[in-house]
């Protein structure tokens, strides 16, 4: 760090010093990790180059397993993106004050991960060169087109929803002059934090956080409908819309917990991501592990009880057949581990939530696997049940590149924006403490 920057930083408040430090100071381990992630990402891009050159034959896909890793990752990543919406929008709307230090990191996950999710179905296309046909020859009855529409809207609204609450922080960086003055002058868009601007900002954030919720719900509902609208066993189910939304929020909370533990360690944010945050998010994770069990149980019991032969083939393939390992690992990761850890107060710590969060992420990835693959290889017409699916190295490399590419971009983003919202912390200190006290007083009967 240069001397001039150090002096500028020293003159700022304590919050600003801690939260802006990552923007101007980069550790050696950051470069090493970033380099490794970049290498994995480039390797995945090479794999995709091969796939585009030679055709989708380079994957392990076949007939009847038309869909595989890419569609699983598509559902998974778009699911993760619900982290930002839930944590930030719902907590803002419900005036949950503990949200202040976690909104930014959550919203950033949302925006970056939507991009990585949305490219998955394009990677999956046999003719990616014709992808614009979905606009030129749009066929409105196709659930895939509903998907294009709602994901597009979701991406735009989430980007705005990330950017607008970032304005005061961008203005702080611009005024401090610690980094790229021109860039931040442009990004801050003339925001001066006058009382009128602040009032307008809060009104816009209020409106956005309400708009973004139904859009987020629609996105994962429609992704569930891609499967549910077909007549295939274990896909053709009315529960899929809500089931997918619930699963998305669940994996989103897990993702943000993992991100928070890493950020807290990497940037020394113990004062911002406190034990209480992990406790609250841990409780939320616990609630969703129970919800997950409820939805999954309802889905499988309905299929089992009806006993329709086509459904039963896919059903038993998952419970006791060739997919028993991914199925029961999913139950372990999505239910048993998070339930047994998060129901204990002593485990709702950074370490405990990290373990539960990783278990849930693995479990939710497997859930999508257990939806896509067992049904694919067990089509309704039994004569054709000859299927098997083993992903090729090309698919696995592209999946690894998706994970590393997302992590890399997220890391880079922490070098350009404070990962905890400075102005929201400040507002919390200056106004909310009093406001909450007043609000609680309002709930109570007038004192005698």
């Amino acid at each position, binding site marked *: 760090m240069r001397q001039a920057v150090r002096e500028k930083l020293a003159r700022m408040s304590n919050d600003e010093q801690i939260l802006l430090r990552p923007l101007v100071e980069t550790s050696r381990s950051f470069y090493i990790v970033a380099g490794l992630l970049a290498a994995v990402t480039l390797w995945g891009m090479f794999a995709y180059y091969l796939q585009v050159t030679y055709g989708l034959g380079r994957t392990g896909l076949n007939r*009847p397993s038309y869909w595989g890793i890419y569609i699983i990752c598509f559902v998974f990543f778009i699911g993760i993106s619900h982290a930002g919406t839930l944590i930030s929008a719902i907590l803002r709307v419900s005036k949950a004050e503990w949200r202040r230090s976690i909104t930014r990191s959550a919203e950033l996950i949302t925006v970056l991960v939507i991009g990585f999710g949305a490219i998955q179905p394009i990677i999956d296309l046999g003719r990616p060169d014709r992808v614009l046909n*979905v606009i030129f020859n749009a066929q409105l009855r196709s659930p*895939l*087109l509903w998907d294009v529409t709602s994901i597009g809207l979701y991406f735009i609204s989430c980007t705005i929803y990330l950017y607008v609450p970032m304005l005061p922080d961008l203005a702080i960086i611009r005024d401090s002059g610690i980094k790229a003055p021109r860039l931040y002058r442009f990004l801050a868009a003339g925001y001066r934090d006058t009382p009128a601007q602040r009032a307008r900002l809060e009104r816009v954030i209020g409106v956005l956080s309400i708009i973004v919720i139904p859009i987020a719900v629609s996105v994962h509902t429609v992704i569930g409908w891609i499967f549910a609208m*077909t007549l295939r066993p274990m896909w053709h189910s009315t529960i899929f819309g809500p089931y997918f939304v619930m699963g998305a929020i669940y994996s989103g909370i897990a993702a943000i917990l993992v991100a928070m533990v890493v950020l807290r360690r990497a940037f020394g944010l113990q004062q911002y991501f406190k034990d209480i945050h992990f406790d609250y998010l841990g409780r939320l994770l616990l609630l969703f592990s129970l919800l997950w069990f409820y939805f999954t149980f309802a889905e499988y019991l309905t299929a089992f009880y009806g006993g329709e032969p086509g459904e039963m083939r896919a059903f038993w393939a998952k419970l006791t057949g060739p997919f028993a390992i991914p199925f029961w690992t999913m139950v372990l990761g999505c239910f048993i581990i998070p339930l047994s850890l998060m129901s204990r107060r002593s485990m709702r710590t950074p370490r405990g939530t990290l373990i539960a969060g990783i278990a849930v992420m693995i479990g939710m990835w497997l859930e999508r696997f257990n939806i896509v693959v067992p049904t694919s290889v067990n089509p309704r017409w039994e004569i054709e049940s000859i299927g098997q699916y083993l992903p090729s190295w090309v698919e696995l490399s592209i999946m690894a590149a998706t994970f590393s590419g997302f992590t890399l971009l997220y890391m880079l983003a922490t070098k350009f924006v404070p990962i905890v919202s400075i102005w929201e912390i400040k507002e919390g200190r200056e106004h909310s403490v009093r406001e909450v006290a007043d609000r609680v007083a309002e709930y109570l009967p007038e004192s005698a």
Partner: protein
Amino acid sequence: MARWGMVIDLDRCTGCAACEVACKSENNVAAVSVEQADMGRASSWMKVMAHVEGEFPDTTMHFYPRPCMHCDNPPCIRVCPVQATYIDDEGIVGQIYARCIGCRYCANACPYMVKYFNWYGPEWSEAERQHLNPDVSVRPAGVIEKCTFCHHRLQKAREDARAEGRELREEDYQPACVDVCPTNAIIFGDLDNPSHAVHTLKDDPRVLRLMEDLGTQPKVYYLRPRD
């Protein structure tokens, strides 16, 4: 307007698979390597499915030649995001190869599994290349293809009939699989035209349609084997 359909008499089918071969050569369906075929990547617009009943040694085997069902209510066309698969006025379900983006949603939606994907581009030996059918377009890598009831034959037959100034006759338009069947197990024609054989056969008491209960209204009828 005609409504083209097919009746397949399972009693007459010997499982010789001549229909499969004729279809491949008529429609320029490229063969794939043994490894690719084992992975489930061979295309066969017409496929003779074998169905075994009973326990060894008391078994009977039936053969189901299975083309596209050309459903009146096709699940594949609803899900296509780019209108690349469609049903025409005469009930033939087609695929626009030049527009298909290769998402394979239709292949997943079809309960009969008759939509085939081109995992790689087609490859022919020099000898095969010289015998490609000029009336049928060759499909590139990355698109879905399917049975068309040899629609190109309909176009040709219609032109011939017009040139000769007469109506289209039943025998003018027959798909390749029907032409080649040595036991006449496959009968083809206009389901709505009382002078065509399929019109009466489709109401035969032996008739069954595959997965009729799904509401797809297939236009391929099977005549159940007599015991």
